[in-house]
């Protein structure tokens, strides 16, 4: 089997266009075909979709659109053709027959069906297609949902291996191979769970808010619960899947005993309340007010505050009263259903856990939940309920990620681990991934230890985000009581720790996924190299909190824009850095972080988050041989005249947009001062540390400004920047 180097996607709907975009994200040239000019329109609409399906504008240029009527031969050189057209078996079969005439022999064809068995797709298929056809079941949106189910059927094993490698290593998916059974793994259990949760809520007269609170946080399920999830998925799609289950599942499948809720869904659809796509579903909005539907009258009313619930699954299912009873009625049967899926749907219970974690965002899969609640307790209670208990209920996955040893060192905010091969790993784990004094102390200490005992150091965060920056609550607490010296100490601690990272005698590699904002971004900018997950959101967003970067962010960005500048003189680099920071630009991907200068050309991108740490370790080892830390650089600053130019730019921006406030301009002026040498008019080359001093000065002055403190308060209260 030859490698996959070119791809085609047939169908340009939500899924088709999303898959095409993500193939392009992986650097594959993609052909996207659909009826008439649909594909052309879908391609043009891609950059406007939210969340962004594309990682960069460059990726969009890898996609060519065409019409299914005239341009079918565009797929001729594709190594992988993804079918994502209407969910209709005959339409798909007819497409496969047409494709067979033009596709390259040995190319692999995959269907993105979620409801049609592979066997049905192959009925009357051209000879030999069964060797090339698989199902690749993406979840929506394809760029962000990490699960990919593959049904290999009778396809050539080597071709399936190549496909899986591409999906894993380049698309970044967690690939789960499935048997050809309805709903595969994730939806088979997920649809059963959704149906039971909705049906039981109806039967018990619970409100949607109550049901979602129960089927949410205490079970490690996303806060959207079940009704909120339905709004995201769309009620139409759910009905479609239900209909296919009804056609395909055996007569004695437990799914058929799910309490009836079809009438509710039909009434909702008739009302046009089909979910977020339609602007309203079980929930809606009226201005700032969140509304919830009354399940009896289908009238909207202001959403109630969620009830207070226990924090653990066991406490929840043992909670006396209607909410605890509901929790058990749904969860107990869902766990029993999961157990009954082994064997048949899959022989491996751990794949069910994995599929639910990656496909439905559950923190723990069903078997991990059984282990947490207690297998004997679950079995006993199910039996008491008269629910059939199958052997796999005893298969309890271990949830705790076992660590081989204790950390070498650590505190509440970060721990240092020996990961073998001479690489140490500093894991950040502070509250809300914020940088506090403890974390800064551990960073300094980790560099010290790595310098003597290791060949390289990796800094990472196992949580969803690398770091959201300095702990604003702490900083604001100091500023509120005018503890200026303590604030200065906190600033110094950051500058010391980050300088230690930059000038460490061994390479420090930042392994980043999710948000790396403010101080988190600055920390990465001091690393010798960065290994970034595709979904990396980096930015120097300090202006939104009324500050300027104070831990070397201004200096490092200036160093990078200076290195990249093609024109001569200190002004173009200052201008570039100024615009990025003044506009608080945040990358929507690692690729964009590179375009913005937060990542350098030699920094690397890992598509699969599961592989991030391993890639970062390998990177560190690669750099370790003959590593020499950078020499402190000299910077030529633009001086007072440069500052005036930058302020002029800011003024022009302000006039062009009503959103720019007077205080934005003030902050832009402060930033311009830092980037050009400040009042000292440092127009001659200066050591890079001079810019650090300017940063420190600027930040310390801003802490005394009421409007800066208002911005910080607002960010803390709402998570959003304030334009005051």
């Amino acid at each position, binding site marked *: 089997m030859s490698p996959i180097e070119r791809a085609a996607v047939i169908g340009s709907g939500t899924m088709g266009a999303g898959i095409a975009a993500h193939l392009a994200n992986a650097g594959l040239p993609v052909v996207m075909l659909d009826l008439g000019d649909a594909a052309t329109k879908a391609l043009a609409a891609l950059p406007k979709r939210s969340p962004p399906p594309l990682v960069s504008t460059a990726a969009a240029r890898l996609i060519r659109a065409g019409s299914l009527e005239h341009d079918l031969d565009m797929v001729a050189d594709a190594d992988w053709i993804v079918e994502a057209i209407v969910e209709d078996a005959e339409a798909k079969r007819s497409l496969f027959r047409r494709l067979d005439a033009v596709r390259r022999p040995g190319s692999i064809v995959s269907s993105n069906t979620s409801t049609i068995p592979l066997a049905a797709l192959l009925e009357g298929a051209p000879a030999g297609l069964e060797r090339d056809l698989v199902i690749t079941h993406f979840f929506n949106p394809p760029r962000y949902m990490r699960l990919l189910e593959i049904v290999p059927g009778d396809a050539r094993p080597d071709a399936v291996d190549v496909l899986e490698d591409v999906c894993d290593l380049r698309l970044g998916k967690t690939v789960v191979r499935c048997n050809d059974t309805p709903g595969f793994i994730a939806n088979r259990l997920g649809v059963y769970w959704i149906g039971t949760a909705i049906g039981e809520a109806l039967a018990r007269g619970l409100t949607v808010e109550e049901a979602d609170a129960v089927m949410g946080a205490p079970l490690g399920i996303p806060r959207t619960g079940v009704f909120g999830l339905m709004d995201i998925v769309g009620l139409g799609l759910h009905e479609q899947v239900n209909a296919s289950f009804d056609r395909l599942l055996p007569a004695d499948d437990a799914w058929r005993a799910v309490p009836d809720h079809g009438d509710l869904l039909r009434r909702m659809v008739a009302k046009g309340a089909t979910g977020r796509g339609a602007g309203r579903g079980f929930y809606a909005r009226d201005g700032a007010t969140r509304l919830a539907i009354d399940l009896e009258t289908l009238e909207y009313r202001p959403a109630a505050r969620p009830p207070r619930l226990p924090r653990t699954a066991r406490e929840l299912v043992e909670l006396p009263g209607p909410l605890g009873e509901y929790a058990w009625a749904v969860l107990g049967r869902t766990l029993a259903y999961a157990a009954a899926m082994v064997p048949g749907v899959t022989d491996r219970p751990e794949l069910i856990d994995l599929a639910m974690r990656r496909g439905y965002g559950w923190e723990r899969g069903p078997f991990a939940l059984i282990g947490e609640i207690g297998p004997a307790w679950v079995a006993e209670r199910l039996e008491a309920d008269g629910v059939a208990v199958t052997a796999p209920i005893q298969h309890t996955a271990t949830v705790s990620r076992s660590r081989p040893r204790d950390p070498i060192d650590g505190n509440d905010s970060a721990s240092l681990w020996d990961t073998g091969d001479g690489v140490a790993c500093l894991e950040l784990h502070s509250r809300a991934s914020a940088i506090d004094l403890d974390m800064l102390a551990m960073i300094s200490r980790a560099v010290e230890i790595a310098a003597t005992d290791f060949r390289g150091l990796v800094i990472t965060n196992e949580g969803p985000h690398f770091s959201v920056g300095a702990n604003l609550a702490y900083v604001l607490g100091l500023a509120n*009581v005018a503890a200026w010296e303590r604030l200065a100490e906190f600033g110094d601690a950051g500058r010391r720790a980050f300088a230690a990272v930059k000038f460490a005698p061994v390479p420090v590699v930042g392994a980043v996924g999710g948000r790396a904002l403010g101080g988190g971004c600055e920390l990465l900018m001091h690393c010798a190299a960065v290994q970034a997950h595709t979904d990396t959101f980096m930015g120097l967003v300090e202006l939104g909190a009324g500050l300027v970067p104070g831990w070397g962010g201004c200096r490092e960005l200036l160093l990078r824009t200076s290195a990249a500048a093609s024109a001569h003189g200190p002004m173009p680099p200052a201008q570039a850095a100024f615009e990025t920071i003044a506009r608080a630009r945040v990358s929507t991907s690692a690729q964009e972080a590179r375009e913005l200068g937060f990542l350098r050309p030699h920094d690397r991108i890992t598509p699969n988050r599961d592989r991030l740490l391993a890639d970062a370790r390998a990177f560190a080892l690669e750099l370790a041989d003959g590593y020499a830390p950078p020499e402190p650089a000299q910077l030529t600053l633009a001086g007072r005249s440069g500052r005036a130019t930058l302020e002029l730019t800011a003024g022009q921006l302000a006039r062009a947009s009503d959103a720019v406030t007077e205080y934005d301009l003030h902050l832009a002026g402060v930033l311009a001062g830092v980037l050009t040498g400040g009042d000292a008019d440092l127009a001659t080359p200066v050591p890079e540390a001079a810019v650090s001093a300017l940063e420190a000065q600027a930040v310390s002055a801003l802490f005394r400004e009421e409007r800066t403190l208002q911005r910080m308060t607002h960010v803390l209260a709402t998570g959003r920047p304030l334009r005051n």
Partner: protein
Amino acid sequence: MLTYRAPIADFRFLLRDVFDHDGVVAALPPFADAPLDTVMAVLEEAGGFSEQVLLPLNGVGDEQGCTYRDGAVRTPDGFREAYAALVAGGWSGIGVAPERGGAGLPGVVQAAFEEMACSGNLAFATYPLLSAGAASALCAHASAEQVERYVPHLASGEWSGTMCLTEAQAGTDLGLLRTAAEPAGDGTFRLNGTKVFITGGEHDLTDQIVHLVLARLPDAPAGTAGISLFVVPKLRPDGDPNGVTCGSIEHKMGIRGSATCVLHFEGAVGELVGAPHAGMAQMFTMMNRARLGVGIQGVGIGEVAYQTAVAYARQRLQGRAPGRAHGNGAGADPIIAHPDVRRALLRMRALTEAGRALAVWVAVELDVAHHHLVASRREAADDLVALLTPIVKAACTDNGFEAANLAIGVHGGAGYITESGVEQLARDARISQIYEGTNGVQALDLIGRKLPLHHGRLLRRFFHPAVARATAPQPAELAAVAGPVADALTHLQETTIWLGTAGRDREQAAAAATDYLRLFALTAFGDLWLRMAAACLEPAAGDAAFATAKLATARFYADRILPETAALARAVRSGKTSITAMSDDAF
């Protein structure tokens, strides 16, 4: 015998030299006609009223107390005449807007009047205080028509007012109250229930008494979310009784001339004030002013205690004071020459004058919070008021009691005798630490509500200017005050930062509350002493002696009281364990 001269010079100093009355309060639109000169003329008159009318009744009122007979309450001899003088002087409505029948003077005038009235006669002062509170509650929350019907009569003093909150089972925890309000079908309500500890609930000073009553509507949710505010007059418009009767009055430790009543509401006709179930929120908006008023009672007691103790110490001759020149055959020194007596007097004076400055500051900021044209200035002032209100209430009443107690000590055995008047001050002062939210509750309010509000925003209204003042370069005369103030601010900063993390444990915060409030209060007093001292560096003509005494008191405060902040900071940061560890049984 109590000695009292109204502290007019100190008020003038505070308004003119420290808080810039003409630049701040008189610059607010409603007070354009109340420049310093006008205000001082009013205060001099108020001082005279307190000295000449109220003070002579103080002992009599205590001795006779109020008497109860067949549902009627008789105030002590002279109270009716004094009340008539109060009405004639127009003192009832000094803070009420002119279009509602008042004088429309700034809140700081009302505050100063209250302090002087409390110095003269705390028991008597409770009656107009409650009327002013009721008028202000109605102005804030009642319909225009209700305001029209009630407020002008309260402002003139023709009617008096009460606040009926407490019930036997619902004291600090008002969520437990049970008084019921049934709709009568005609827009009015019938109230049934019993209220206790109602100040001025029944008396013979006015015919009509306007009760503001917290009660529950039939559909009310449980707890504080289900409380509504009603206005219930003692007499119906036709003059018939309205089903409000006084069951008895309390016999109590102090303020015996103030009638503390049990009130029965039996089918009393009431009108809803504002929206249903909004009673608690309405009370909250009133609370800042009411708590300031109680804090001021402490200042008033402190002032009269101080002046009485000084007068006694000047004339009482005992012993030879160390460090004084004594000729052959010289007799005993006046005890004011003795260092320990001076310590007591200076402590009373330093705490009282700082308390007055704090009360005036809060009163000024209250006016700014209500009337400033710029929203951000209103918000900043409102923040400061919210932050300082529990401090002014708790610290000033604690200091008032302490001053009365020190005054007894200065008097020696004489102080323990009723005739001295000072033992009455201690008994009168004690209630101010309890009512309108006990001082323990004030401390919890500060630490549990005010500190976390808006992520600590309230704090910076105090800290930023205070730290800037204390750390600015100082002339030599001020350095000795500024240094200890800066140290106290550091203690308060560090303790506040510590609470920011440790205080997430609510038990830890509660265990710290009272010591923390005291630490905050002493530090705020330090800041005020620094401001007052700075204002004395260039005294106006004729004020040299006043300035010298002020600077000396500031120095005493910095040297002798501010160091307590170090101990308090250390106590707070020792953590909760020594408070929580002992088992309940071991007590």
